[in-house]
Every structure is written in structure tokens, then in C-alpha cells.
């Protein structure tokens, strides 16, 4: 059986273990042996995005060392995978094994669609779902077409969700606007960040969504923070939880 090195974002590890477990379930059901290199911490994106290049470098090297042994590397996050595939170049250019690492690292829905070629799911999900298309997955990994580009529309997340019986994906007025998380942006630009989040939530509730989902827990952490403060009747689930058949 091909091996998957499970890459779990640091904050998912610490705050959302159920998202990691749902990822394990999906990969094992697809016939992969899942390993979790326990020396992993963070890919370094928060430091890199703040500009702290030297704090990032050792983490990138460690990541390469930890994940080199596996056939595939899979993470339930577009943002963290984009860090590895699109931005590690800055730190690991020319380092042996990096070219292979880039090729075998996948975001979860991308892996399920492009490698596993998943075409059925056993569970039903009879809810109205708002799909938040997290930016880094969308525009850095091209997990779907962005609304700015004049290309044939597609979305890997939507393709998978539609395999679930009874699901209804609601149409949004702004299908891929940023939620305003943006890492340290969420606190450094608190006012703009929260207004962006409120506007996203409003779009989903107006469209009648009962559950809001996304590929990235970071967006959902921010949105859920706003939802819980205002007690908005909208459930938040990572896409891995829905696809794995976890209850609402």
C-alpha cells in the first residue's frame, strides 16, 4: 500500500484534532497507510508571511527531512500546502529531495480527486451547505477556478461534496471573496479582518446555508469566532469532517 505522510497544520493539531482524524479516516478508507511524523510542528508560514525569513528556514529544512520518506504528503489545508509547494522554493531551492517533495505534496481534496480519483462516498449529507473557497487553495494551488479568471469553472471541493447524497450547495453572491483571516492580518488589521468575516457570514446565511465549510480550518477558526460571538445559527465544519461522514 502506498504510504502517506500526514501533514497536520500546527493549529489543527492543537485545536481541531477531529479534523485530523477525519483526514486519517478518508485516507485509510482510500487504501493508504497513514503515518504521522511526530516531530512536525509548523510549516513556518506565519513567520514567512510576516517577513521573518530566518525563523522560517530551519522549519522548511526540517519539513523536508521529516516528509521525504513517504510516497505522498497530504494535508487538510490549502494554505499550508501552498507554503510547501509555492513558497519553500525561497528556502529550499536546489536542496536534494525538494523537487520530489513538491511533486508529492497534496491538499486533501486535491489528493482525493487527482490521485485517489474518488467517485463515490457512502454517506448522505442532507443539509444546505455554503462552500467557502479558501484563497490559498483556490488561487495558489488552483483547486478551483477563481472568479477573476475567464476559464472553465471547476472546483475540486464542490466535486467531492456533490458525491454526498442529499447535499445542497447554496449559491453565494461573492463566490470566492476572502474571509479576512490572513494569519497575523487577523489581529494586525482587526477591524478590516472582522468586517470581511462578517460580510462572508452574511452572504452564507442569506443564501440559506445551514453548514459552512472550507478546505482550510484557519478561515473557519476566524469565521467561527465571529459566529459564536454573535450566536449566528450557522454550523461550521471542515470539509474533511463532512466527507468522512461525521455528524453535524
Amino acid at each position: 500500500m502506498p504510504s502517506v505522510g500526514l501533514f497536520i497544520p500546527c493549529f489543527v493539531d492543537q485545536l481541531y484534532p477531529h479534523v485530523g482524524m477525519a483526514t486519517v479516516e478518508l485516507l485509510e478508507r482510500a487504501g493508504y497507510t497513514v503515518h504521522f511524523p511526530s516531530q512536525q510542528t509548523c510549516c513556518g508560514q506565519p513567520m514567512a508571511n510576516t517577513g521573518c525569513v530566518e525563523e522560517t528556514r530551519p522549519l522548511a529544512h526540517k519539513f523536508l527531512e521529516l516528509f521525504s520518506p513517504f510516497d505522498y504528503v497530504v494535508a487538510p489545508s490549502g494554505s499550508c500546502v501552498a507554503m510547501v509547494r509555492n513558497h519553500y522554493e525561497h528556502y529550499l531551492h536546489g536542496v536534494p529531495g525538494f523537487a520530489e517533495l513538491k511533486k508529492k505534496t497534496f491538499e486533501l481534496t486535491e489528493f482525493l480527486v487527482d490521485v485517489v480519483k474518488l467517485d463515490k462516498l457512502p454517506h448522505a449529507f442532507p443539509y444546505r451547505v455554503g462552500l467557502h473557497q479558501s484563497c490559498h487553495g483556490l488561487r495558489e494551488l488552483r483547486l478551483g477556478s477563481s472568479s477573476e479568471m475567464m476559464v472553465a469553472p471547476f472546483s475540486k471541493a464542490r466535486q467531492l461534496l456533490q458525491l454526498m447524497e442529499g447535499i445542497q450547495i447554496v449559491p453565494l453572491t461573492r463566490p470566492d471573496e476572502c474571509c479576512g483571516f490572513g494569519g497575523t492580518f487577523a489581529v494586525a488589521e482587526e477591524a478590516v479582518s472582522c468586517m470581511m468575516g462578517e460580510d462572508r457570514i452574511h452572504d452564507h446565511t442569506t443564501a440559506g446555508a445551514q453548514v459552512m465549510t472550507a478546505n482550510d480550518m484557519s478561515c473557519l477558526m476566524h469565521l467561527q469566532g465571529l459566529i459564536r460571538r454573535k450566536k449566528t445559527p450557522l454550523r461550521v465544519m471542515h470539509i474533511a469532517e463532512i466527507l468522512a461522514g461525521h455528524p453535524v
Partner: protein
Amino acid sequence: MNHATLAGEYIQDRERAAWHDNTLWFVRSKRDKAAATLPEWESLRQTASQIKAHTVSKLADFLEEFERNAIARGVKVHWARHAEEHNQIVLKILQEHGVKKLVKSKSMLTEECHLNPYLERHGIEVVDSDLGERIVQLAGEPPSHIVLPAIHKTKADVGDLFHKHLGTEAGATDPNYLAEAARQHLRDKFMSADAGLTGVNFAIAETGGFVVCTNEGNADLGVSLPKLHIACMGIEKLIPRAKDLSVFLRLLARSATGQPITTYSSHFHGPRPGGELHIVLVDNGRSHILGKDEFRTSLNCIRCGACMNTCPVFRRSGGHSYQSFVPGPIGSILAPARDPQKHASLPQACSLCGSCTDVCPVKINIHEQLLLWRHELARLGFLPWSKRLGMKLAGFVFRRPWLYSLGGKIARFVVPKLPRFLVYHRLNPWGKQREMPEFPASSFREQFQQREAKRK
């Protein structure tokens, strides 16, 4: 003041911020519809990007070709190394012709050079003739957007301003009435002007001519009445051939406002009979950017403003929060190239969503350059101490998996037991409008290891 502070102040008037957001989203939607009418949209963007890359790679040669051809058409060509030199050149031309009154059509370059206050100090009356520009000029404000300079003003704001300056009825908000008042007011200014000044959208190396795009025809009227026309352009406005123009004219207005083309695309090839045409070619930091590999493509910018209309931060924080003559995503790259310390907060005024990169008609990798600017600013020491310290600490923890796991364990144990006031206070910006995540009983790694242990 940094962007976050000014943005916070802007958003305090939530209704206005929402109105600004919706107004610009409407423009973005019009752009989407217009772009979708061209099946070749993406290849047009690619072509435009390649033409610009080619031009910039031989910019000196193309500039000299342009100068030769312009001179052959009877144009007087001037070169300015920086803003001050540009202003001096314009003033000298005006003084030599005894000009007291100047009408301008839209030119971001003259905003960049602060030409208006310079000329006014030397006793020359300057009137911006683009309606939006005239509105902000009357208000004594800089433009808040490069294509829609007065987009931050509501109809009521404009009514108040015109009542004060143009004598319109108090409380008037009818756009037709207000536009007509501006038209009459500007007509007088056009008739009495001694010289006209325009910007340049595209200058063509092979012909020595240039093109000015407007929607109001004000550039044409401004330079057709007086005998003297001065055109000011940044050296990056060049394109090699006349036929390249079709690529850019098709992209520009669709990206800017969703129109198929600007109402007026005025071509100037030499002075009109009996008149004089001067072109001022301005560097002002452009060749500095040209020398930087990672930021060079920012010179591709055709000033369509699409990145501003699509930017979720710009739409909600208003153009003035950037404190830069070109605001928004592209401005946040151009401004720190000029003064990194003053504009250090701009590359951080971005959630790195990448929408600007995808909307850009000349394919500038805007969000990637913003990220590179963050690296550059940290290297130069312009990162706020709080972020620097936070990242140093995080880096220290993340390099030590045991410390990371222990820290998580302690937080999961302690934080849920803390009284609310110890978690939610003014030092926790996350918690101002948001709840903190709920801490689970155990981490993923703990759950995964327990499961593995059970299996064995």
C-alpha cells in the same frame, strides 16, 4: 499613521464602509461581465504581460526611439530624473509662455510629483478638469482611487461641496443637476485657460505619438483650445509598436470600469498647426524598480485600478487609508520602493488572498510581490517590534517539538479554566469581536498515538 489605524477609523462608520465596499464591488462585477465577453481574455493578458516584459527589457532603446520619432514630429522632449526636476521643467515651459491658468486632465504622475501645489506656489492657477479630480481638488483632498478619484464621496458629499464652491442649491443630490453645474463651471475654465496639461496612457516608440484615454473628453477640450499642450509621462508608459495598442486598449477599460473601451482614446502625433507640444519623460524611482528582479513587473502597471476594486481590504478601508498617491495593492508595492519606512505598513494591509494577481490585466504577481516586500521590510528592520518578537518566540517553540507539545498541553489545561476577563481584554485583538477557539481535551498527535498504541 499606519494603515491598520486609519482603516479602523474608516470602518467605525460601518454604513459608509459597506457602501464603499458595495460600490467598488459593483465595478468589479462590471469588469467580470466585460472580460467574459472576450473568449481570448486570458491570452490577451498573457500577450500584454509579454509586451511589457519585452519593452522593459530594452527600455532605454525604446525611449530613445520614441524621443527621435517625437522630435521628428515637432515635439519638444524633456527628461526629468525626479519629481522636483519634472515640476521645474513644467513651470519653466509655462513661464516662458506667460501662462497664468492651466487646465489639466487626469494624470497620476502629476499627483505623484505634487505638481499642483508647486505651480500654485508660483502663482499659476491649476484646474483639474476630470470631474472626480475636480471634486477632490475642491475638497482639498488627494484622490482616493486612481481611476475613480472621488469614489469615497457620496452624492450628498458632492452636493455639499458644490453648494459651497459652485453655488448649487443646498442639499442637492441629483447627479444630473450636479454634473451639469460642474460642466458649466469647467467650461469657463477651459475657455480661459492659457495651456493644457495631460497625462499619457500609452506612448508608442515606433511613431513618437501617444494616447490619452478619458471618459469625459476633457483631455481633448483642455488641449484643443490653448496653443500649448504639455504631456507628462512616466518612462514605463511606453509600448513598442502602434499595433500593440490594440491589446492594451481592449484590456484597460474593461479592467477599469467594465466598458469595452474608454469613451475617448485621443491620439496625439505632434503639435497642431501654430501650437506647441511638450512631452516630459519622468523617471522618479522607476529605473530603481527596473533594477530589482523581483519587483520589475510592477512597472507593467497600466493604472486600470482593477486591483483596488477587487481588493477586499481596499474596498472596506478606503483609498485614503493607504496615504499614497497610488493606493491599494499595486500602490502597496510602489510606495515602499520609494520610502520603505514611511510605507512599511502597506504590504501588511493585505490578507494575501491573491485576487489582485488574478484580476490584473498585465499579470503582475501583486500578492507575491507584497509578500516579498514583507521580507524586505523585515530585513530593513521596519517590522513592528510586537510582530518581530512574536515570530522569534514562535520560531523558538516550533524548532522544539517537545516544547511545542508541552505548550499546547498547558494551554489546553489552563485557558479553559481562566475567567473571561483574563482572556478577553484590550491586549487581545482577536477577542474584540471574535470568540477564541474552544480547546479540545487532547491534541491530534495524542489521539493519533493512542490509536496506534491500541492497534498494536
